[in-house]
Structures are given as structure tokens and as C-alpha cells.
């Protein structure tokens, strides 16, 4: 029918633009009690006492609980992504005796409404004996361990080597060394985390509404913490207001709410607020890199070597996925014969690090692209030219980059990387802006950065097709949406593969009752995984319907004909059934017409792209403005280019946030966050953002039958490097370096004031 590839508007939207969306915080069953968390005021302290009396005496308070009151759940949360390289630390739902970051849950209040719950939380008195706060990962490695009973703050070391690694630097004509710092970024989905838990004492079962990216994994973790069988818990992710990786795993508040719902036999609701997003939801980026690149005089890369530190915060909720992905994404779309990365993951007294859109991909890209800029500068070579020399060329594919994957090397499929880059170089008018242009008080400069988007590539995902009684077809999947538009895109795939109208399909996601197994939405995997599972389910489902119709017609299935939702006996047009009639028949005979298919990942997809940006900097105020932004992106076979554009632009703006605005500042002495509000921690807003011009190229992915690639993380990978390059270029008369993120007007001012002026 040709739905794949069409810019279809979303079936999700009418509800959402009329205020009929139903998010977790909108769900309040009768009799609901509200939960508020008492959070640590110190980054590192012994708890010397908990006093609940005043809080308990407040009218409307149902209970106030410390760890001693909730002993059955005072075990560490399940380890996310266990790894033999990692000495994992997981928190208990409430801190026991010690707190490890500002914001760690210490006690919990249950009350008749949220006003009372929050007032009571303020009346809880907690005694603290402050301890030394570890706030720097480099110094922290050898500082006294923050976790009792552990030998060191070094949580893990990731190490990758290709070719001769660091030893190969001796063969380079030039070695350039750079220190790069990425700020601590708070992901901030617009909907804060939340949960509603409803216990049925008769069936001893729990119904949970949670804005989670993976309902099945969430259920399993909750079951483990509550020591309940999985099948007594149903987890539903209703409309979810953004996820970006932060809502992947279970958090302390989820366990507290569910457990108290069981104990109190009343629905329990926790709707986190923005302050809690700043102080309890996983954070990201926050790395320091000491990176080297060795090049020949021709500009050819000899070796790339990076030693970096991941400021991990207090716990490892998602293992070491972020530093690990950082390391394996550094080489990007280039030919790097020798490579070595050593990443030290260090515990500090801060909120834990866990995946935020990109999960290491943006960091790896930043390292490589900055190294290339600095190497070009050292050689007196143009910054685009050094990229042209080192980008992989079509004759080199499939290219094995030497990073181990499934017992072999990671393999990059075909792409025309130089063509992609050249398209952006031309579109951004690089040749005009590469030599600084001044207009009044504004200096203009250009930056170009490439990236290699690695998507999907792990686990399985399912699609269960079922004929509904009205003749429509339901497709259930375990991979839920936080705004991506799966209900539209998956229906596009199904409509094409079953040759039926798009309107015939209803996609159901985010409900453990709808499909037995699932993994979830992260790593840009859903279109690759559920998209292919849907395509795979289609022939079996059609066969099932034809076989059932054959029984009704008393004909052989091969004598039946399938045409736009009617099944007919070939050559006898009077003998035909619509899908609604077939469904009606099946219902009368108590037959369920249902087929599920599960697609297993073979390996990740890779898509290469380029960003080009022109910035203008005011030499009086040092304000930084984006004047032009061009993107060329490879999304493989595009199911819905409109939605892909949305993902690309949305991701890019988040990347610009990391480049120019976003950094949670932690006081180095006390470990206190200093800018934990939207007034002080700036998100990009409409006024600062440019219009983006996006071009798509389509190189189908060879690892999945449909040729799909993930498209959600490409946008966020290169903006930091492209903007830093453009800032340096604009200010070339001054020897300014943009190697610390975010790049801010005050940083530029101080660099100039410190004597940067020639």
C-alpha cells in the first residue's frame, strides 16, 4: 500500500492536543493516598537520628516511615546491566545509616493529599553528622571510599585496544593532546517521574501505572523487591511525558509506593516534582577526557588514545553502559588503525549517572571531533580537509573497526560518508565562513562535525497481532512510547506488510497484560525491533486468517484470495467475508485469531551523518547565537520521514543544550547542587533555537530484513563538537579554546580577559 516512507500525521495527537492525554500524574483512583519523600540535605553524612513525631501528628497524615519500618524492602535495588568489570553499588529504597548524595531518600510520608504529605515531610527531623564529600572523580579515585566496606571509589575500568594502541603514537609525525570536560546534564523529560500503585487484597495482585520505558523489566524488578511473583503484577505505562533513557529502570520511590500500597491496602500515588527531577533522577555526561591523537604530516590518523574519568555519582543503576558506550563510539566514522581507551568510573557524592539520550555516543563523538579540529590546527590544515582524509570510503566497507562484538569485530555497513559531509559543507557555505567574518560587533564562524549513530542491536522485541471483533487488527508490543509516535509508525509497517488500510490497525503498547514478553524503548531500538517483529508476524497472521476462513468456506486455504480486507474463494466472488465478519464468526466459535512474532537483534545498525553550524559571537557581550544549522542524516529505510525529522531536530536541540546552556553545578566542598531550578539551570527555549535544515540519505541497514535504523540519538551526538568548532573559528584572532562544556559567554569573556587577546 506504500505507507512506509510517508509523512503521516500521528494517530496519537488528537487526544494530546485536546488535553485528553492520560499521564501517570493524571491518575488518581478513589481513596488514593499521596506520598512525599524526605530527602537528604547532605551529600555525605551519617544519619544520627530520625524524629517523626511532629510529622505524624499533622492532621491528614497516615504514616511516616523510616528504614526500620520498612525492613522487608530494605535491600539493594536490582542491579541494572551487571558487568564483570564493575563493583556495583545499588541503593536501598531508603538510606540506611548513611546518605551518599543530596536528595537521597531518607524517609517517606503518606497522607490524604499531597499538600499535607509535603508539609509533613518538612516536619520530619533528621540528624546528620556530615562526612567528607567526594565531588571530583579524578581526585576521588584515591580518596577515602564513599561506600562502607569498599576498598576504593574506583567502580570499574573500561579498556579497549585496537592495533597497537597507545604504543602506535610513536609512529606519528605529530601528537596533539587535549583535555575535554563535559558538564553534568540533567535530562529533564517534561513529565517528572511518578507512579500509582493499586493493590487488590482479594487476588493479592498489584496494578501499577508508571511512566517507564520498559514495563516488563520494571515489573520484574518490582517483583524482586516485593518478593511477589511477576504474574501478580501488571505494569501499565500510560501516556509518558518524555523518557530519554532516564525512565528505563526502577527507582527507590517506585518500590516505596508499591510496597506501601500492599501494606496499607489503599492506592498510593507519588508524582515527583521538578526539584526531585534535579535531585533524584539519573544524570549524565560529566566526564573528563585526556585525549591524544597521532597524525602523519599528511593528516592521516595514526592512533587515537583517550584516558577518561566518568563521574559516576553514588550508585550504578545502569551499570557502566555510559562509559562503555563512550569508549566504543570514539572512533566514529573514521579509519583509526590504532586505538586505545581507558575509562575510569569513579564513585562520588552526587546523583547517580545513568543513560540520558545518547548514553556515551555524544561523549565519544565530542572527543574524536575535537581531536580532529586540534590536529588540523596543529598541522595548519583545514578542519574539513582532515576529516575528508580520514573518513571511511565506500571501498572500505564492510569495515571492521576492531571493537569486539559478539566474538568478532564491530562491522560498519556501506555508506558514502564523504558525500554526506560534502553536502553539509556546501549547504552551510563553509568556504565563506571558514575565514572569520565580522559584521558590526558580531564575529561569525563555522563548525562541522561528523558522527556515527549506533542504534539497537540487543535483545528481542515482539509484535502480537490479534483480530478484534470490529475487524480491526491489534498489534501489541512490549516497547512503549514516550513521544516517539510508535502507534503511527508501527501501523504503517503493518499496513504495508498485510496490504490493508492504515486505519485497520490499533497499536497497543506499555502494558504487561497485552504481551507476555518485552524489553522496552531505549537505544533507538523500537523501529528496528518492533518494526521487524511486525513485518515478521504479518505472513503468519495472514496464514492464520486464511486457514480459519478456509474452514468456514470448506475450501482449501490456497484457493482463497486476500484483497484489501476481504477474503474470497478465488473465482467465486459471492463467497467472501470481510475481516469484521470473520472476527464475528471467530467470536461465535470462541476462536482467538492471534499470531505473535519475536525479532532477535543480530547487531546494531550504523548511520553516519554530519552537522554544520554558523555561530555569531558578540564581542562586547560575548553572547553566542546560532545563525544557520544544517544536518545530513542517514536513518536507513525511513518509515515516517516527518517523525524522523522530529527526532533529529529534537535531539539536536538537546545537544545544543549540552553545548551552550546545561550544567548542574555542584559545590566542590559541600556537594550541594547550586542551580537546581529551571531559573538557574537553563534548558533551550524557542527564542534561542534556530530553524534547522535537515536532509536525509537512506542507506538500508543490512542486519534487519526491513533495513531500518534507529534515528533518535544521531541528533544529539555532534552539536557540541560542531558548536565548539564554530566558536573557536569565529574567535580565531583570540586563542580561545572551547574544550569545556557548556561554552558560555562568561567563559569566553574570562578567556579573553586572561590574556587571550593577541
Amino acid at each position, binding site marked *: 500500500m506504500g505507507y512506509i516512507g510517508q509523512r503521516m500525521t500521528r494517530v496519537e495527537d488528537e487526544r*494530546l*492536543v485536546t488535553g*485528553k492525554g492520560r499521564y501517570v500524574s493524571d491518575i488518581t483512583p478513589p481513596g488514593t493516598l499521596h506520598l512525599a519523600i524526605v530527602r537528604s540535605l547532605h551529600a555525605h553524612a551519617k544519619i544520627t537520628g530520625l524524629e517523626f513525631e511532629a510529622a505524624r501528628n499533622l492532621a491528614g497524615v497516615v504514616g511516616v516511615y523510616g528504614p526500620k519500618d520498612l525492613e522487608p524492602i530494605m535491600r539493594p535495588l536490582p542491579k541494572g546491566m551487571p558487568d564483570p568489570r564493575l563493583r556495583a553499588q545499588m541503593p536501598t529504597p531508603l538510606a540506611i545509616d548513611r546518605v551518599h548524595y543530596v536528595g537521597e531518600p531518607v524517609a517517606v510520608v503518606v497522607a490524604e493529599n499531597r499538600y499535607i504529605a509535603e508539609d509533613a515531610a518538612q516536619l520530619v527531623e533528621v540528624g546528620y553528622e556530615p562526612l567528607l564529600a567526594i565531588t571530583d572523580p579524578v581526585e576521588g579515585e584515591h580518596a577515602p571510599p564513599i561506600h562502607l566496606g569498599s576498598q576504593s571509589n574506583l567502580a570499574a575500568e573500561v579498556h579497549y585496544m585496537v592495533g597497537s594502541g597507545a604504543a602506535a603514537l610513536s609512529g606519528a609525525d605529530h601528537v596533539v593532546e587535549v583535555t575535554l570536560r563535559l558538564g553534568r546534564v540533567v535530562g529533564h523529560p517534561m513529565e517528572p517521574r511518578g507512579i500509582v500503585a493499586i493493590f487488590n487484597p482479594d487476588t493479592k495482585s498489584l496494578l501499577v501505572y508508571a511512566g517507564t520505558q520498559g514495563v516488563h523489566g520494571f515489573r520484574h524488578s518490582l517483583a524482586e523487591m516485593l518478593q511477589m511473583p511477576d504474574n501478580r503484577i501488571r505494569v501499565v505505562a500510560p501516556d509518558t511525558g518524555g523518557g530519554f533513557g532516564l525512565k528505563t529502570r526502577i527507582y527507590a520511590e517506585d518500590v516505596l509506593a508499591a510496597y506501601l500500597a500492599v501494606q496499607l491496602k489503599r492506592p498510593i500515588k507519588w508524582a515527583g516534582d521538578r526539584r526531585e527531577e534535579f535531585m533524584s533522577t539519573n544524570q549524565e555526561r560529566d566526564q573528563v577526557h585526556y585525549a591524544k591523537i597521532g597524525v602523519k604530516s599528511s593528516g592521516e590518523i595514526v592512533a587515537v588514545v583517550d584516558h577518561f574519568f566518568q563521574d559516576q555519582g553514588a550508585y550504578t543503576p545502569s551499570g557502566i553502559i555510559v562509559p562503555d558506550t563512550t569508549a566504543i563510539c570514539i572512533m566514529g566514522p573514521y579509519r583509526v588503525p590504532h586505538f586505545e581507551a581507558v575509562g575510569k568510573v569513579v564513585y562520588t557524592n552526587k546523583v547517580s549517572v545513568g543513560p540520558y539520550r545518547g548514553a556515551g555516543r555524544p561523549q565519544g563523538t565530542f572527543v574524536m571531533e575535537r581531536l580532529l579540529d586540534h590536529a588540523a590546527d596543529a598541522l595548519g590544515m583545514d578542519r574539513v580537509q582532515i576529516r575528508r582524509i580520514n573518513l571511511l570510503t565506500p571501498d572500505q566497507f564492510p569495515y571492521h573497526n576492531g571493537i569486539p562484538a559478539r566474538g568478532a569485530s564491530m562491522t560498519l555497513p556501506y555508506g558514502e560518508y564523504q558525500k554526506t559531509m560534502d553536502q553539509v559543507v556546501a549547504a552551510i557555505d563553509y568556504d565563506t565562513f571558514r575565514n572569520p567574518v565580522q559584521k558590526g560587533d558580531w564575529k561569525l564562524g563555522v563548525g562541522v562535525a561528523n558522527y556515527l549513530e549506533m542504534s539497537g542491536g540487543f535483545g528481542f522485541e515482539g509484535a502480537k497481532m490479534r483480530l478484534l471483533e470490529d475487524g480491526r487488527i491489534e498489534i501489541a508490543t512490549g516497547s512503549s512510547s514516550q513521544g516517539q509516535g510508535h502507534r503511527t509508525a508501527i501501523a504503517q509497517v503493518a499496513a504495508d506488510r498485510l496490504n490493508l488500510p492504515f486505519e485497520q490497525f490499533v497499536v497497543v503498547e506499555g502494558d504487561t497484560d497485552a504481551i507476555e514478553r518485552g524489553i522496552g524503548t531505549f537505544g533507538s531500538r523500537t523501529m528496528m525491533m518492533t518494526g521487524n517483529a511486525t513485518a515478521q508476524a504479518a505472513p503468519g497472521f495472514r496464514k492464520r486468517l486464511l486457514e480459519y476462513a478456509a474452514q468456514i468456506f470448506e475450501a482449501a486455504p490456497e484457493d482463497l484470495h486476500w484483497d484489501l480486507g476481504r477474503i474470497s474463494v478465488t473465482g467465486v466472488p459471492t463467497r467472501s467475508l470481510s475481516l469484521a465478519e470473520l472476527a464475528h464468526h471467530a467470536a461465535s466459535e470462541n476462536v482467538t485469531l492471534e499470531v505473535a512474532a519475536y525479532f532477535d537483534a543480530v547487531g546494531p545498525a550504523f548511520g553516519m551523518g554530519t552537522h554544520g553550524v554558523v555561530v555569531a559571537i558578540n564581542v562586547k557581550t560575548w553572547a553566542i547565537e546560532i545563525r544557520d544549522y544544517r544536518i545530513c542524516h542517514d536513518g536507513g529505510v525511513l518509515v515516517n520521514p516527518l517523525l524522523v525529522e522530529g527526532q533529529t531536530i529534537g535531539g539536536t536541540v538537546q545537544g545544543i543544550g549540552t553545548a551552550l546552556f546545561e550544567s548542574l553545578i555542584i559545590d566542590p566542598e559541600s556537594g550541594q547542587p547550586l542551580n537546581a531550578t*529551571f531559573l538557574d539551570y537553563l534548558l533551550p527555549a524557542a527564542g534561542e533555537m534556530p530553524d534547522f535544515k535537515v536532509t536525509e540519505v537512506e542507506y538500508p541497514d543490512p542486519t534487519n530484513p526491513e533495513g531500518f535504523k534507529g534515528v533518535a540519538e544521531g541528533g544529539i551526538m555532534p552539536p557540541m563538537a560542531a558548536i565548539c568548532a564554530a566558536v573557536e573559528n569565529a574567535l580565531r584572532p583570540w586563542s580561545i579554546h572551547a574544550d569545556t562544556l557548556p561554552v558560555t559567554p562568561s567563559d569566553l569573556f574570562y578567556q579573553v580577559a586572561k590574556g587571550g587577546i593577541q
Partner: protein
Amino acid sequence: MTVEFEVNGHMVTIDVPEHWLLADVLRNQMDFTGVHLACEYGVCGACTVLMDGEPVRSCLTLAVQAAGRRITTVEGLASEGQLNVVQQAFIEHHALQCGFCTPGFVVTASYLVNQNREMTREQIREALSGNLCRCTGYQKIVDAVEEALRRHQATDPTAEDN
């Protein structure tokens, strides 16, 4: 205390503690859950409603301040199932992803459209700067508002040039 005001065309009388916020009352006592709370200190704009036709932050407005006023939430913009010009343009231009910030944007943009002013993209961006979105990167929201303004002016004889 007892407060009487109009919400989406209906007069309501409610009993509410003095310190309760309009957003909480609209959401929890009247079930207008399209009013979203994302910061609760007036920065993100998700809770924007119209009070006598002017956009206000319902998270920074006490419920008692609504006494005698006319409140419009996102639920009150479509009439008899017919989406307003902004809602329609948001769908056509893919101006929303997760949809959580959307009610605030739609209410703010509906106010702008009702102003009947011609606006450049730059002015639209500036006028939307009091609303935060984390998904879309804003471009398609600006496209939608531009389109809504154009359509409104094409159909509304009272539209002025500036």
C-alpha cells in the same frame, strides 16, 4: 473558602483552602487534567490557562484569585468536537511528541492567534519563550503557530494587519 468562577463555559462553585493553587484545583477537583505541572514555579508554562482571555500560570495563581473570572483550559478550546485552528495545525505539523508540554503551548498559541496580529517567525519564537518543550526542538511548533495565524487571518474578517 467558597469561590465561584467560570471554567470552559460553565459556572462552578467550590470549597477550597486559601493556599491551594488554581492548577491543583483544576486538575484534582474538576478533573481538567490537561493542565499539566512540570515545574510548579512558573518557568515551564505547561500549566498555562487563560484567565479572562489572558494567559496565566495556573501553578502561580491561587484558586481564590480566580473568583469571578473566566478560565479556559486546553479542554475548553475545541468546540463541539471541532479542533481549533491551533490544535489542527499542531497535528498537521508534528508540533508535539510526548505531548506533556503541549497543552501549555496550545493555550499560549491560541491566545496569540486570537490577538489577530501578524507575527514573524522571530516574534513567534519570542512569544513562545515562556513555554519549555524537551522533545521537539520547537521548529515544528513555530511552523504550526505560523500556519494557525495564517489560517485564522484568512478566515477572520476582523484580523488586522499589525
